[in-house]
């Protein structure tokens, strides 16, 4: 019991001297704020652009791995003299070959469609019409992408949900 009293006292005394270190102090706040603002100054990347980059990366990487999108972290950090773009992705499950191939095949097909549409528009003299068409296709495509984004965690299960969404 004596031991306890002494360790308690010891900790209290130490705590008294360490008090200032524990709270977040003005110096740490300044350092952290500066680091963030300097990263923005140095790269010209606004928070909006960083968010967009994050989304695009998720889109790209989802083709190959299943990941926890909420937990994906994308940060600029300073590593000595060098700036580093740090991407941390918690992987839930590696996709199997078939899934990846299917995904890539779908993407290739999409690309071809776009290309064909572009070629078509070159061939056809009626410009107004084709422009309208390609615009439509563009918007369709982006919607598709968003859908892909949502359903990635488990493709088969969510396909029905996705249908519901599109209905709404």
């Amino acid at each position, binding site marked *: 019991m004596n031991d306890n009293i002494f360790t308690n006292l010891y900790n209290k005394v130490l705590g008294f001297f360490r008090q200032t*270190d524990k709270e977040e102090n003005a110096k740490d706040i300044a350092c952290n*704020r*500066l680091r963030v603002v*300097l990263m923005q*100054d140095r790269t010209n990347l606004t928070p909006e652009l960083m968010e967009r980059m994050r989304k695009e990366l998720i889109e790209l990487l989802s083709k190959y791995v299943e990941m926890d999108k909420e937990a994906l972290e994308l940060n600029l950090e300073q590593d000595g003299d060098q700036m580093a773009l740090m991407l941390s992705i918690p992987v839930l499950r590696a996709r199997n070959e078939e899934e990846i191939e299917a995904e890539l095949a779908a993407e290739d097909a999409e690309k071809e469609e776009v290309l064909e549409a572009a070629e078509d528009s070159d061939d056809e003299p009626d410009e107004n019409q084709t422009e309208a068409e390609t615009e439509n296709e563009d918007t369709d495509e982006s919607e598709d992408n968003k859908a892909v984004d949502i359903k990635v965690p488990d493709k088969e299960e969510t396909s029905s949900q996705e249908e519901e969404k599109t209905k709404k």
Partner: protein
Amino acid sequence: MQTCIKPEPSVLDEKDKKGETMSGRVIVITSGKGGVGKTTTNANIGTALAKAGKKVVMIDTDLGLRNLDLLLGLENRIVYTIVDVVEERCKLKQALVKDKKNPNLCLLAAAQTRDKTAVTEEQLKNICEELKKDFDFILVDCPAGIEQGFQNAVAGASEAIVVTTPEMSAVRDADRIIGLLEAKEEIKSYKLLINRVRPNLIKSNDMMSVEDVVEILSAPLIGIIPEDTGIITSTNKGEPIVNDEKSLAGKAYKNVAKRIMGEDVPFLNLEEDTGVMAKVKKFFSGLIGKEK
């Protein structure tokens, strides 16, 4: 009018005696943010280098807002300015104002009545080239900001000292300046000078430490200057603080000058004792309000 138009032969004609030309180092002193102590740094490093026997010329490029003359106490001696030189109303050597005490130290003053466009980058480069022949060190005092005045000041220099303080805005601006300096091919090296350091505030974690600033800017350090009320009185008297043997800031500036000359001088220890006893002392001195 008191004038000092003609520099001492001992300063400018040394090359004739030696039979060879000198090649001085051109160092620009810059900061981005105003009020962090560029001009004070310039006056003190210049004076310290001159006291160490080097031939030094300071160029004030802050056209329209000149102050280096005041800090050196030379405001009444200026006859010609840098604008008179580039507009060929006088020779370069005529425009150099010699220091009151130290014949090794000269000032090329800025024009007070003109703006930053009165001198071009090319003209400043030429002036620096010309002065290199006669002086060991050419210190260029840069105006605040990153506009033409900065571009001009940097044009002739091959080294830079970036002055900052442990404050967010000063550090941010210093970072910007470092970025611009890195993009300049002529600037071969730049060093950081952290001014107005307050050990007590750093100690209580209320101010960023020198280490924090160095880490954030990742630039090599050439000097740490403590906050010193003596700077105010020295400015008022027109007498750089390096002339005050007792001043800690003066000592720190002298050390910077030594480092510029290639000496390996350790940084002054501005921090107090960090043992438990010091903490206890601080606690009690805080209670009776006599903390120092």
